[in-house]
């Protein structure tokens, strides 16, 4: 800052320049001392000897019921094996989840040992060397045959696996913690017991239901421009209508995302589905969709399974005064299919922070090995979690725990994920804001989709360009 009203002596700009130069020298030195780009460090194949001293094993996740369930479950069960360990699940607001983890990664100092990363965050974390390569550990300690290969790949593999597959030669950086996908929530009392089977049928059923029931909207789904809300919605419709998000081999988005199928999907979303939603629902995410269902304001809704537990709580609901009454009205089904039967892959894996102390890293590996055992996975299912092992997914412990769990088990072979490249945060923001703009009439569907493809492509093309760009 400078104030020109001065006489004599060295002019302010002159002094500022001097000061600036001095500070820059200091700053350069500090920056140079900063982190080097290192490839992911490796975890040992066998778990090192664990400490007998008291130890707190810290997770970081966003604030939602599964996070609290995990803390309770781990403290009740894992301590049977390791009585000196306390498990702490730190929670941050959903909107800050990525920032909270990656700003700490960037600091090369984390106050958590096990970051619970979204599957799409892996690329960024691996490229920056923030999480341990656990390939050897998995080979030695985890029964990989017990999983649907794509589930194992989605939460751990980088570079990304092809949809539905796993590349056995690729490295693994994480293990599944909580599986998730969208469920269709429908009002049995309004549209009947049988859920619609195709996307077109779903839309016409919703249309009729809305017309027959004033005050109730046909549909409710995520439209917000934060997190990955609107992006997942478009990606889901895109998948169902046979579109592709990108070509991973050629790294092409422009021309792939906005091909005929892509445009059809955007048209369906904006021109057929959006008119059936409540007015002003253009900023809805998980909680608003849940509120609409609980208030009896939606015929058909889509939400993440792991976030649906609250719907059965009579205290939050006007649909009934007991869980049974609510379940008389609410049905949960797998998503309708159209040209394909793809559903969005949700959920998160657990990973090991490269910056946590060795004793904690060893404990984290021990926890992961323990957590992925068949009987523990079943207990996790009974405690409200969504397991990933096939045996646990088919166990009565899981299937009977909640009415939507069968939906998850049925959906596992149908899942598709987004890109997990290091530029994920930028890609998803571009898609979110543009889909949100299209849903709220700020852009035409065609314009929005072409903008997404063009902008995402330029982000991918500029990849490796470090901290420039990004506007």
């Amino acid at each position, binding site marked *: 800052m400078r104030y020109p009203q001065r006489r004599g002596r060295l002019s302010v700009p002159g002094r500022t320049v001097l000061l600036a130069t001095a500070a820059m020298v200091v700053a350069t030195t*500090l*920056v140079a001392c900063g982190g080097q780009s290192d490839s992911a460090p490796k975890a040992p194949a066998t778990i090192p000897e664990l400490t007998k001293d008291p130890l707190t094993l810290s997770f970081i996740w966003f*604030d939602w019921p599964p996070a609290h369930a995990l803390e309770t479950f781990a403290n009740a069960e894992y301590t049977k094996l390791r009585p000196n360990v306390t498990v702490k699940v730190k929670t*941050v607001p959903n909107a*800050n989840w990525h920032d909270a983890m990656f*700003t*700490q990664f*960037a600091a090369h100092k984390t*106050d958590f040992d096990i970051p619970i990363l979204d599957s799409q965050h892996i690329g960024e974390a691996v490229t920056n060397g923030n999480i341990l390569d656990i390939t050897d550990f998995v080979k030695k300690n985890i029964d990989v045959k017990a999983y649907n290969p794509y589930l194992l790949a989605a939460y751990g593999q980088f570079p990304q696996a092809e949809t539905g597959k796993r590349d056995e030669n690729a490295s693994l950086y994480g293990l599944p913690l909580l599986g998730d996908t969208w469920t269709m929530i429908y009002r049995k009392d309004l549209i009947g017991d049988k859920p619609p089977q195709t996307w077109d049928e779903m839309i016409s059923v919703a249309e009729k239901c809305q017309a027959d029931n004033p005050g109730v909207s046909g549909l409710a789904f995520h439209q917000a421009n934060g997190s990955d809300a609107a992006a997942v919605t478009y990606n889901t419709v895109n998948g169902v209508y046979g579109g592709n998000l990108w070509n991973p081999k050629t790294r092409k988005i422009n021309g792939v995302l906005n091909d005929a199928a892509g445009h059809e999907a955007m048209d369906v979303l904006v021109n057929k589905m959006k008119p059936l939603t409540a007015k002003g629902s253009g900023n809805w995410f998980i*909680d608003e969709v849940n509120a609409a269902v609980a208030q009896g304001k939606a015929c058909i809704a889509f939400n993440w399974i792991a976030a649906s537990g609250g719907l059965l709580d009579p205290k939050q609901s006007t649909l009934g005064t007991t869980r049974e009454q609510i379940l008389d009205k609410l049905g949960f089904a797998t998503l309708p299919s159209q040209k394909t039967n793809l559903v969005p892959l949700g959920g998160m894996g657990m990973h090991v922070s490269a910056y946590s102390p060795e004793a904690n890293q060893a404990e984290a590996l021990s926890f992961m090995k323990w957590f992925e055992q068949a009987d523990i996975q079943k207990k996790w299912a009974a405690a409200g979690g969504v397991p990933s092992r096939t045996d646990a997914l088919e166990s009565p412990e899981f299937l009977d725990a909640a009415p939507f769990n069968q939906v998850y088990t049925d959906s596992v072979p149908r899942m598709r994920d987004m890109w997990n490249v290091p530029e994920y945060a930028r890609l998803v923001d571009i898609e979110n804001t543009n889909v949100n703009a299209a849903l709220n009439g700020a852009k035409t569907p065609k314009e929005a989709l072409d903008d997404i493809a063009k902008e995402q492509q330029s982000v991918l093309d500029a990849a490796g360009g470090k901290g420039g760009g990004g506007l």
Partner: protein
Amino acid sequence: MAVSVDEAVSTRPARDRGSPARRFGGRGRSALEVTLLTVLAAVMLFPVLWMIETSIKENRDVYAIPAKFFDFKVTMDHYKDVFVASGSGRSTLSAAFLNSVVVAGASTALATVLGVPAAWAYSRFAMKAKKDQLFFILSTRFMPPVVVVIPIFLMYRQVGLIDSKLGLILIYAAFNVPFTIWMMKGFVDEVPAEYEDAAMLDGYTRLQAFWRYTLPLLLPGIAATAVFALIFSWNEFVFAIFLTSSDSVRTAPPAIAGLIGGTTVDWGLVAAASVVFALPVLVFAYLVRKHLVAGVTLGAVRR
């Protein structure tokens, strides 16, 4: 100077009084003005009242359409939830309130300790480019937080201050020091330097004179200044959300913001937490109402 709100609003005869010719037309106009004021006051206050009302409603009634203004069941559950966790023990919100108390308190103390002596020095001594120094000091307060947080983040990362209370205390103190200096300089200016000169004739040093004679006279001003610094630190959001991530450090504003964006939103709890959060500020603001004009303009306008 220093017209306080009290003075500004003290009862003075209306200007039109004594002009009988105008009185008749004045009455109709006066009624219109009162109505206008009432409507404006109602609009300004309604959100606050609605917040209080929501905080004592059951969640069912919160979502009621059309909105329920009077016929709802009163519950104190939301206030209980602010302090007590669902099982038992302290809630994370109450921990955040405690963090806020520590951070706001310590940063205010630091800003006061650094700012008051500086203000005194700026008021009493001839200094090179004093005006420029003072303006420079004030302008650091105008930096956009979201811009400042980028280099602060990098700097804290080097020295390990990210996600620490000390980090927040330092940055809040840095934002409060300019305010403290400007605000306090006004108060010091009002204490005649002759007091100190007299003391010095009695053989005290300048420092002793400041300590024994000036400082006690400044105490009310210091209290008012500290309260404004406290309010700023208490309400601050941008630094808090970017520089903290754990429950043991997070202050109340990001904690309250974190109440939405989960799987369900408990608006009753949001309202109750907001009321609890805002209450101390309103009380403090009432206590320093005499200095509000100076306080809200960072001490720049003193009338």
